[in-house]
């Protein structure tokens, strides 16, 4: 069981690669103290696929999304878009690369500039990139308003005149303005009501089919992730503890944390689950991680001898399915 080599060439349809990305907060420069929000994360996103990133608050998923979008500078590692280094590209070049990856945030209303009309908000990315004439941008913004299910003649209104679901549609239209290949959805449906959430998810899926978009879908809600993602990455205290095909990860999780997360979700069917069936795990996901231990060990119901001594590596448990747990190592059986 040697360390898996990182130098393997990615499959040809790989669109985005995240390699060894790390970020700490609060530590002094040059020292590694402080909180490791993201610790040595590797990911790939294939063309046309949806990758789900799930974890509870404080697991580092929002930091990871900001690193992927190059809104934060990482301490180490890089993000490559179609093989081009996005993280270390010179500012001018990076700005061009931004056209290929866009973002939709959780709080739709505050992600729109309150002093601009929604038409201007949607047109803004092209304007910031210095693309197209004003007339062209306006035509395009109107077209996108129609595409996301709003009325183009409302382009003169301001964001506060729209409901949460409508604002999210506007934010999606803005993300589409630069015709990106990748869209990052950072808790984009978490604040919405069930009936509106279904509408927005449907829109997101329709757009993907229509334009062949690739998505990174970040959420704390495993239910939603399960529904729309092809692959799922589970994060815990800054690390990816399990990654694999959505269906397999949910049906047969290979990390105790994934299992605990799945068991803690209340199912909307009283015949299948009542409160006494809800999985209970100890403690909170807080506190310092010991460098040489599994971060989940203090809460893990299956904790055993090596968990406190060695940090488990993310290893293959099945084709395309990896987990970071000592239970999956051959000698553990």
């Amino acid at each position, binding site marked *: 069981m040697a360390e898996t080599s990182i130098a393997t060439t990615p499959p040809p349809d790989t669109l985005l690669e995240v390699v060894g990305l790390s970020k700490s907060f609060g530590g002094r420069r040059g020292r590694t103290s402080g909180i490791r929000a993201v610790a040595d994360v590797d990911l790939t996103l294939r063309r046309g696929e949806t990758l789900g990133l799930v974890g509870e608050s404080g697991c580092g998923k929002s930091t990871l999304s900001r690193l992927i979008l190059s809104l934060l500078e990482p301490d180490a590692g890089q993000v490559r878009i179609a093989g081009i280094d996005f993280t270390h590209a010179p500012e001018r070049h990076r700005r061009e690369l931004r056209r290929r990856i866009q973002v939709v945030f959780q709080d739709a209303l505050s992600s729109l500039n309150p002093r601009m009309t929604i038409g201007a908000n949607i047109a803004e990315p092209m304007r910031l990139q210095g693309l197209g004439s004003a007339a062209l941008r306006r035509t395009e913004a109107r077209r996108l308003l129609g595409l996301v299910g709003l009325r183009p003649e409302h382009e003169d209104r301001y964001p506060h005149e729209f409901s949460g679901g409508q604002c999210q549609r506007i934010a999606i239209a803005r993300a589409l303005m630069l015709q990106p290949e990748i869209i990052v959805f950072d808790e984009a449906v978490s604040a919405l009501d069930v009936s509106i959430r279904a509408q927005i*998810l449907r829109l997101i899926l329709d757009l993907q089919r229509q334009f062949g978009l690739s998505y990174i879908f970040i959420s704390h809600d495993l239910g939603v992730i399960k529904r729309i993602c092809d692959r799922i990455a589970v994060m815990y205290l800054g690390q990816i503890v399990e990654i694999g095909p959505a269906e397999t990860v949910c049906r047969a999780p290979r990390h105790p944390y994934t299992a605990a997360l799945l068991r803690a979700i209340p199912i909307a069917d*009283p015949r299948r689950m009542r*409160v006494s069936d809800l999985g209970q795990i100890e403690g909170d996901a807080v506190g310092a991680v010991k460098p040489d231990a599994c971060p989940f060990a203090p809460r893990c119901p299956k904790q055993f001898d090596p968990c406190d001594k060695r940090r488990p590596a993310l290893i293959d448990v099945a084709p395309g399915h990896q987990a970071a747990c000592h239970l999956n190592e051959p000698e553990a059986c």
Partner: protein
Amino acid sequence: MSAPASLVVTDLRTRFGSDRVGATVVDGVTFTLLPGRTTALVGESGCGKSATALSLMRLIDKPGRIIGGSVTLNGRDLLGLSESEMEQVRGAAIGMIFQDPLTSLNPALTIGQQIVETLQAHRPMSRADADRTAIDLLTRVGVTDAARRIGDYPHHFSGGMRQRVLIAAAISCSPSVIIADEPTTALDVTVQAKILRLLHDLQGAMGASLLLITHDLGVVASMADEVLVMYAGRIVERADVDTLFHDPRHPYTKALLACVAGIEDDRSVPLEPIGGSAPDLWNPPVGCRFAPRCPVVQDVCRSQDQPLRRISAEHEAACILVEEDRMHG
């Protein structure tokens, strides 16, 4: 088991604004809470579920006011009480737990002080006794090392622990009714699982009625005995939990369950959103308020209000189709 009801709400109506221009956010709500039972009030944002809870506690602020109906707690009419009498009811006979455990706690007081304050406001007791009771309560809600932690301030606690503190304050005077307004919405799922279990266990031990207000049908399915579905200020369906999830009769309930199934189940279940959005209560539609979005709407729904119709002793739905089903079956 037909224990006497602890809380009876009849035709409760709460309105914001004036008589001419305004929104009746709680519009003729009627329900009964029984001791030892959990009743879930479920609906989407703006449907009036939180306004209902605040109306029960008489915590509706201007420009809102209760314009009709009655609320009877253990035989006592709450709407007729003076403000100072009502203050004695709040926190004592009715305990309340809110969504955001950080803003619901005073950041300038230690958690011990906050619980002691609630205790001493309702019962004459010495500081030492109150401290001891506070430690007992915190231990009971699962705060480890409570004797030391009562001196801590709210920001020292995690979200889940703060919610436990709020629960301790809510049960401190052994209320007969506990109102929990989205108690786990701000929490992570693993923490939610623990808080729900705690609420369930405490309620069982105390024999109190629990009114659980939530938008999360998963939480409803795991916690509730009885479910009230609210839409645009009105209760549109009332049923025991099993019937509600397996034989819903109101099109809104059906649509909501379909949405959840579409979102949460595997991909074989199609994603079926409800078209449109909830009506503006300042300008509500005539007739059934779900009519503009209803897939099986009939002409009469657009002109006449649809009252709750009885299906069985445990089941009512505010839909014309209940009549038709009865005629055909």
